[in-house]
């Protein structure tokens, strides 16, 4: 610093600006650019919720995830945030040793004096975080590349840490997602079950229960696993059992079959075997394929199928929500190409995952699609469609 500014220099300027030094707090600060400025190529500002910042201080680690082409996300242990760069025309000066006014300073009787504060760097950009849905599309694509077709070949599969490197979501969201799709964990790696193999495994259980005329609501886990281990490894069977028999029965050690899950898988399996089915035929086949205690309802397939009631006869085909793009506009473009007009109920299963606390299905459709009314029923169509 060349010449140190004294309080007299400062107060001269104060008087010049027609301020009275008496009205000011005793301490004034002289601002300089720091002699040792920050390397702005190495430093970034991130705006985040106080809880996240607090977490960092407590030792939590946040993780940026993404491949080269992705827009970046930042993840906590259980949440995912979209990272966007914000630009401001204001200058954001990062200050070292800046003093804020303290209420106690008023009662302190001190002569006017000087303190130094310096500017370490000037920013015009910072990163903003927005909570977002985990980006799981790549998970299914990735796992489907190497499906598990039999328990004798365990060469494929991915470990959790491998998946975290390429999937843009938090660890807990990933674990949750893995539990919702037909995956199994064997020897520390996760596998997607090839549909035929998954059906074979499920049939072991349903056939066995039917054959012995057991109560579907009271299947004893230990008994059935013991009987079936001659066919497949026990840890594989356990995971299938726990997926389809997921609530406790009334007897100790017994579990209730999740009828919806079983019926849904049978429906999905059927849908996958062809490109489109006459709706009536499909419903008949589906009902025949499931154990007798099950009722099949189309609502079970609402996010994996598309019904075309306009054609004669009405048709149903496989159409998976999870295969659709995660970008709202791209997704809606595909949906409206499939079908010109949708009711909110029909559309909900396919857009629900894009909604947030602030933007529900109705609001999202109002924003990105065009509403119309036919015979008093509200439909949504493409915004710039016919």
């Amino acid at each position: 610093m060349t010449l140190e500014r004294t309080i007299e220099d400062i107060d001269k300027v104060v008087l010049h600006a027609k301020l009275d030094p008496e009205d000011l707090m005793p301490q004034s600060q002289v601002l300089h650019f720091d002699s040792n400025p920050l390397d702005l190529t190495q430093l970034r500002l991130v705006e985040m919720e106080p809880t996240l910042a607090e977490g960092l201080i407590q030792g939590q680690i946040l993780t940026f995830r993404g491949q080269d082409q992705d827009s970046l996300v930042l993840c906590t242990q259980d949440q995912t945030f979209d990272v966007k760069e914000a630009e401001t025309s204001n200058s954001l000066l990062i200050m070292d040793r800046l003093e804020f006014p303290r209420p106690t300073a008023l009662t302190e009787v001190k002569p006017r004096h000087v303190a130094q504060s310096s500017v370490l760097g000037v920013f015009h950009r910072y990163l903003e975080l927005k909570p977002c849905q985990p980006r799981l599309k790549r998970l299914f694509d990735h796992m489907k590349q190497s499906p598990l077709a039999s328990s004798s070949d365990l060469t494929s599969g991915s470990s959790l840490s491998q998946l975290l490197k390429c999937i843009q979501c938090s660890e807990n969201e990933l674990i949750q997602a893995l539990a919702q799709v037909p995956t199994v964990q064997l020897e520390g790696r996760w596998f997607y079950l090839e549909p035929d193999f998954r059906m074979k495994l499920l049939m072991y259980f349903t056939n066995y229960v039917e054959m012995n005329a057991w109560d579907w609501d009271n299947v004893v886990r230990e008994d059935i696993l013991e009987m079936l281990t001659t066919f497949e490894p026990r840890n594989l069977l356990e995971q299938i059992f726990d997926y389809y028999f997921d609530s406790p029965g009334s007897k100790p050690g017994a579990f209730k079959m999740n009828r919806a899950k079983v019926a849904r898988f049978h429906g999905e399996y059927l849908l996958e075997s062809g490109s489109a089915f006459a709706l009536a035929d499909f419903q008949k086949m589906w009902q025949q394929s499931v154990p007798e205690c099950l009722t099949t309802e189309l609502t079970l397939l609402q996010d994996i199928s598309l019904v075309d009631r306009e054609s004669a006869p009405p048709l149903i085909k496989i159409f998976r929500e999870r295969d659709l793009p995660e970008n709202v506009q791209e997704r809606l473009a595909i949906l409206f190409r499939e079908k010109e007009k949708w009711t909110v109920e029909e559309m909900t299963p396919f857009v629900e995952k894009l909604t947030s606390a602030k933007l529900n299905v109705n609001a999202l459709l109002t924003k990105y699609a065009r509403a119309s009314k036919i015979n008093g029923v509200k439909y949504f169509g493409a915004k710039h469609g016919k």
Partner: protein
Amino acid sequence: MQIFLRAPSGPEEDAPRDWALLEMQGDLESRIGDLNMSEKFIGDLHYTKAGVPVLIIGHHILYGKVQQLDKPLVAMRKVSQNDEHMEAYPTQTEYLVQAIIEKKLLFKTRPKPIIANVAKKI
């Protein structure tokens, strides 16, 4: 790819600093077009007894306010692999928290000129 963001741990890493933010309209530029601003004097910052920040830069006076940030700004610094305490994190780079900025001085109005109508040397 994964890049970690964490607070410095252990005494050998820099502890988070007590930085603050001063936000103002426009840019600070040298009048003589000097690009190296290091050690350059900017101006004087005062607080009135009511706690209002007053910044005098050259012939301009700015009135601002103290604001608590709803969302703190976390300053993070990129650290490359060559750092010795990286073993626990097998990635190539990571970000270390340098400071968590929770308060700012905001000067959002346009600067007012100081008009010297009294001929007086300063």
